């Protein structure tokens, strides 16, 4: 077991080494920052697409038309019945008149519209929101049991969205894994270069009787600190830019987004901090450990 004195000394050596090789250290930290930034970016984009899709999914909802000649009372009863179904988050009743009003807003000049005014062919309907697109078919099968209703639901469209959603998660997973590997390789390379520059030093250490751990530890500490710096800088950049960008989006594109919102910055950041820290630190440690391996055989 290493003595406390020695550990303290080696920790100091690591920090001093870092400062003396600061250009290389900066290059390595920069590599990690870039890697984590790309990771943070693809994560933010990915989760936001997912988040928006979820909102769209919920917006999609299920429309059920109420058959003609169903009484007002029955409609009210149906409404509370639908509202109590599992996974249903919201039920809106759109009467024949509401439907016509909504329809008329888009087509005032149309002559058909005047005919509609005399005899309204539009059915009354319920707009039902479900807590997740995956529960739609379940809710639909419940609704089909009610004879007064005619269910319309966009099976193909919802399936398509589920697919898009899955594809996006898979693609981002692949991109992120590739990035981690690239980051690790870059880290190994940069620490290898640091070790190479200091190979004489390592050689001397071996000759005067330094153990492998004595030689390895300062480099590991260097790697650790580089990884930490990389993680912290990238987190800072992600926090600042995400805050700024989400602000820009919500103020400027509110209309275009049609009520859709971006994920809250704190959600993204709280998920990214441990991931960036973990990846940064492990890239630093594993990279320097692997880079050291060859030069310890003296």
């Amino acid at each position, binding site marked *: 077991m290493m003595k406390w004195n020695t550990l303290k000394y080696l920790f100091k050596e690591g920090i001093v080494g870092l400062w003396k090789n600061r250009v290389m250290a900066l290059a390595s930290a920069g590599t990690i920052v870039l890697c984590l930034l790309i990771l943070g970016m693809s994560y933010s984009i990915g989760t936001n697409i997912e988040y928006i899709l979820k909102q769209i999914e919920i917006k999609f909802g299920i429309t059920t038309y109420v058959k003609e000649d169903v009484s007002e009372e029955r409609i009210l009863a149906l409404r509370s019945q639908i509202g109590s179904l599992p996974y249903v988050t919201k039920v809106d009743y759109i009467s024949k008149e509401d439907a016509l009003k909504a329809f008329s807003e888009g087509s005032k000049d149309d002559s058909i519209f005047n005919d509609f005014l005399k005899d309204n062919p539009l059915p009354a309907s319920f707009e039902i929101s479900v807590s997740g697109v995956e529960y739609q078919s379940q809710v639909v099968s419940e609704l089909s049991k009610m004879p007064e209703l005619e269910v319309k639901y966009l099976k193909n469209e919802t399936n398509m969205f589920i697919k898009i959603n899955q594809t996006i998660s898979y693609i981002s997973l692949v991109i992120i894994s590739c990035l981690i590997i690239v980051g690790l390789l870059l880290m190994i390379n940069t620490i290898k270069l640091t070790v190479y520059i200091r190979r004489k030093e390592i050689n001397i250490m071996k000759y*005067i009787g330094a*153990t492998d751990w004595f030689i390895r530890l300062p480099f590991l500490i260097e790697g650790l600190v580089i990884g930490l710096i990389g993680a912290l800088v990238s987190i800072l950049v992600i926090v600042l830019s995400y805050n700024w960008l989400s602000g820009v989006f919500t103020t400027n594109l509110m209309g275009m987004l049609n009520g859709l919102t971006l994920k809250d910055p704190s959600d993204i950041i709280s998920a990214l901090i441990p991931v960036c820290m973990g990846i940064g630190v492990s890239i630093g440690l594993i990279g320097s450990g692997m880079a050291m391996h060859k030069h310890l055989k003296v």
Partner: protein
Amino acid sequence: MIDLHNVSKTYSNGAIGLNSTNIRIEKGEFVFITGNSGSGKSTLLKLLLKEIEPSHGKIVINNKDVTKLSRRQIPYLRRDIGIVFQDFRLLPNKTVYENVAFAMQIVGASGREIRKNVPITLGLVGLARKARCYPDELSGGEQQRTALARAIVNNSPILIADEPTGNLDPATSWEIMNCLQDINKRGVTVVMATHEREIVNALKKRVIEITDGSVTRDMHEGGYDDEMEYSQIFV
């Protein structure tokens, strides 16, 4: 102290480094290892430091069978052997003081021991005033004296010097030789590989000459070129 029994070293390319060599060096001796380049001097020193493994034979240093040591034990063997090289091999980004203190850090010495021993050792080699200098601010002789201080600061019982004067002018070489003799007087066994005829001739120490991997001469109070017939062979 150092015992080679029938040691041979054949390199993977077939070159013979040492051939059935028997050498015994007692505690406190001062021994010159002489021989032409490629004669096997370096092979001998590398074997002593367990940098390479012998093909045959047994090497005992300080009652430890070196050939049986595992990789993990090598650092502890090297702590018993101070070493000085022709090219000094100081850490360029550390001061004289730090270079010497470094050898003590490696063995886990306390801060207090380091603060006490390093200045004393620097005083012994005459570098007390240069403690804060970096190696590139020193003359060759001063750099070699720093390396000597580093080699003896842990009180290793053995000092191996691989052509320590090879890069130095004659006057400076003598400074180093005086240092080495002082160290030897303190009880340290000194094994020095060298080409320097004048030094060997002047000091009249034990001389082991190696030619083509074999010991061709081993005499006490020898000179560089003494004839075999005058030699006493110690095996």
